[in-house]
């Protein structure tokens, strides 16, 4: 079975955390957001009106403030007990957030989970 990376919103992070009750085969997810803060090896993305997500960057991650990025990463606990974050495996720069309506992404997330059979294997 090949690696699947479900597209999610910040509110779904819990469901993909390794400790969550469901025995998920994957904790690797995709999430879309605008880079809103960069602090050393951490960054924050803002996911439309769905809140922020803290990213733990790789040494070779190159993010730019204000860009829309898609992150592939693993859901993980943040070091300082500040809840959940995403350990980055890779990012894709999609440029100016103004070129994309975040609500479209919300619909995509909704569709991919509601009609799961064509996107992801059942848990």
């Amino acid at each position, binding site marked *: 079975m*090949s*690696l699947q*990376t479900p597209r999610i919103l910040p509110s779904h992070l819990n469901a993909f955390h390794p400790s969550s009750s469901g025995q998920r085969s994957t904790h690797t997810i995709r999430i879309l957001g605008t880079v809103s803060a960069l602090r050393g090896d951490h960054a924050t993305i803002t996911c439309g009106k769905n809140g922020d997500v803290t990213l733990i960057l790789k040494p070779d991650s190159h993010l730019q403030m204000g860009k829309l990025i898609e992150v592939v990463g693993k859901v993980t606990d943040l070091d300082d007990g500040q809840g959940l974050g995403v350990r980055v495996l890779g990012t*894709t720069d*999609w440029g100016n957030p103004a070129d*994309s309506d975040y609500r479209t992404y919300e*619909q995509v997330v909704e569709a991919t989970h509601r009609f799961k059979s*064509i*996107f992801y*294997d059942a848990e």
Partner: protein
Amino acid sequence: MDGGYNNYNSFGGGGGGFMAGETNSPSGGKTDNRDNKTLRPVTVKQIADATSPYPEAPYQIDGAEVNNVLFVGQVRNISSQSTNITYKIDDGTGEIEVKKWVDSATGDSMDTDEKGPGDGKMEVVLNGYARVFGAIKSFANKRYIGAHSVRPMTNINELHCHLLEATAVHLFFTRGPPGGAGAGGNAAAGGDAVMGGAEDYGGGQNKALLSVSPLAKKIYHLLKTEPQDDAGMELQHIASKLNLPTMDVARAGEELLNAGIIFSTMNEHTWAILEY
């Protein structure tokens, strides 16, 4: 003057006609069925899950035959050989290999992607997104895509649109057309609903039905739903049920007869659905 005019004629008329014939034959001649020539937006998982009823049979997704597929994903690997370029494409639902044959004649046109520096805009890059259009193939039990085109994708809206489109098409095949109330409403409504109404009909007749007129579909639907004996229904009866002129019903019936969807029973104006 005269000669020039004649020249023009032979080039314009004769040449053009021949060309048209030539371009038509490769697409029409090769494949058995023109209706197969669909281009369906899919996810990689759908390609992996596609079934093939028997060896060498066309693949099916959601019970519908697929020939060409269209999908988007991130390029995870590019390997260039002398005859083809193999990409590994990951769209978050799975991974699949995509082979694009290198046409030596157009080997250095913009269609190929040599990895050297060049016009970065038209190049498929590692970990970048690409849009692939090709046919599902398999070799030694391994599924791959024989690509007609692999091109870079730079607008995220295209990605989202694709995923939603794939969902919409999946739902069309599994649940029928959007907003289709029930089978009853479909046949009477125009446009899309009629197309989708065919969803409810038997598999083999599906395709044939798509090509007949709306009125013919209406008659088919009446024959399908109206209680009747083995002899089917008579022309006048159908006309009065549908509240339509006999002439129109006769013409549409002819269409269904010719398409092999219905057959005449007791006499030439009594029809029943041909089930097979």
